C-alpha cells in the first residue's frame, strides 16, 4: 500500500527555490496529499487548478487527432501554478518564482517518481 508519510516526503522535495506548496489532487479537485507552507490556500488552489485543467484538457481530445494536455501553467502577477497529470490524479506546484523552466523540470521529475506507485492504487 501507499504510505502517506513517504508520499508527503516525495512531494516536499519540490518545495525549494520559490515553490511554496506541492499538491496531489483528484480530477474533481479534492486534495489528496499536500506538502508546503500554507494549508489554507491549498484547497482553493486545487479546486481552481483542476477546473482549469479539465476545461482545457478536453480540447486535446475533441479534434480527430489526439493531442493530450501535458502541462498547464497559470501565470499570475504574484507567481505561478503548474499542473500535470500523474496516473489518474493531478500534481500541482504553487510557486512565487518566475523561473517557469525549473518549475517544469521539477514537476516532470516528481511525475516520473510518482507515476508507477500511483498507478498501482488506481481503481
Amino acid at each position, binding site marked *: 500500500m501507499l504510505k502517506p508519510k513517504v508520499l508527503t516526503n516525495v512531494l516536499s*522535495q519540490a518545495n*525549494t*527555490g520559490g515553490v511554496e506548496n506541492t499538491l496531489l489532487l483528484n480530477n474533481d479537485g479534492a486534495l489528496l496529499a499536500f506538502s508546503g507552507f500554507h494549508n489554507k490556500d491549498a484547497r482553493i488552489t486545487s479546486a481552481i487548478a483542476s477546473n482549469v485543467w479539465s476545461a482545457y484538457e478536453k480540447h486535446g481530445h475533441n479534434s480527430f487527432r489526439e493531442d493530450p494536455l501535458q502541462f498547464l501553467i497559470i501565470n499570475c502577477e504574484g507567481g505561478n501554478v503548474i499542473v500535470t497529470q500523474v496516473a489518474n490524479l493531478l500534481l500541482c506546484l504553487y510557486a512565487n518564482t518566475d*523561473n*517557469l*523552466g*525549473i518549475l*517544469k523540470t521539477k514537476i516532470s521529475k516528481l511525475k516520473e517518481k510518482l507515476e508507477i506507485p500511483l498507478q498501482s492504487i488506481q481503481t
Partner: protein
Amino acid sequence: MEAKMDSILDAMMQRDQVTGVLIADNQGLSCGTRGMAHSQASGLITEISHQAAKIHPNLDAPVVILESENTSVTISKYGPHTGAIYKKKSPSKK
C-alpha cells in the same frame, strides 16, 4: 531538487568580471538566474542562439557574443539548454 544547478550558477558568479548568469530551456523558459540577468530575457536569449544556428544548420549552435560599451553577453547552447554569461568589460588598454 535544483541544488546542483544553483551551485553551478553561484560558482559562475564568483568568476572574475561576471555580473550575471542565466540558464533557459528549449522553450525559452528560465531555469535560473543570478545577478543582472533577468528571467524575462530567457526567451530572447534562446531565440538568438536558435537564429544564429541557422547560419550553418549542419553544425552545432555557435557561441554568440553580444558586446556593448561596458558589458558583454556570451550565449551558448548545451543540449536542450541555453546559457548566458554577462561580463563587465575590462577597461580598454590605450
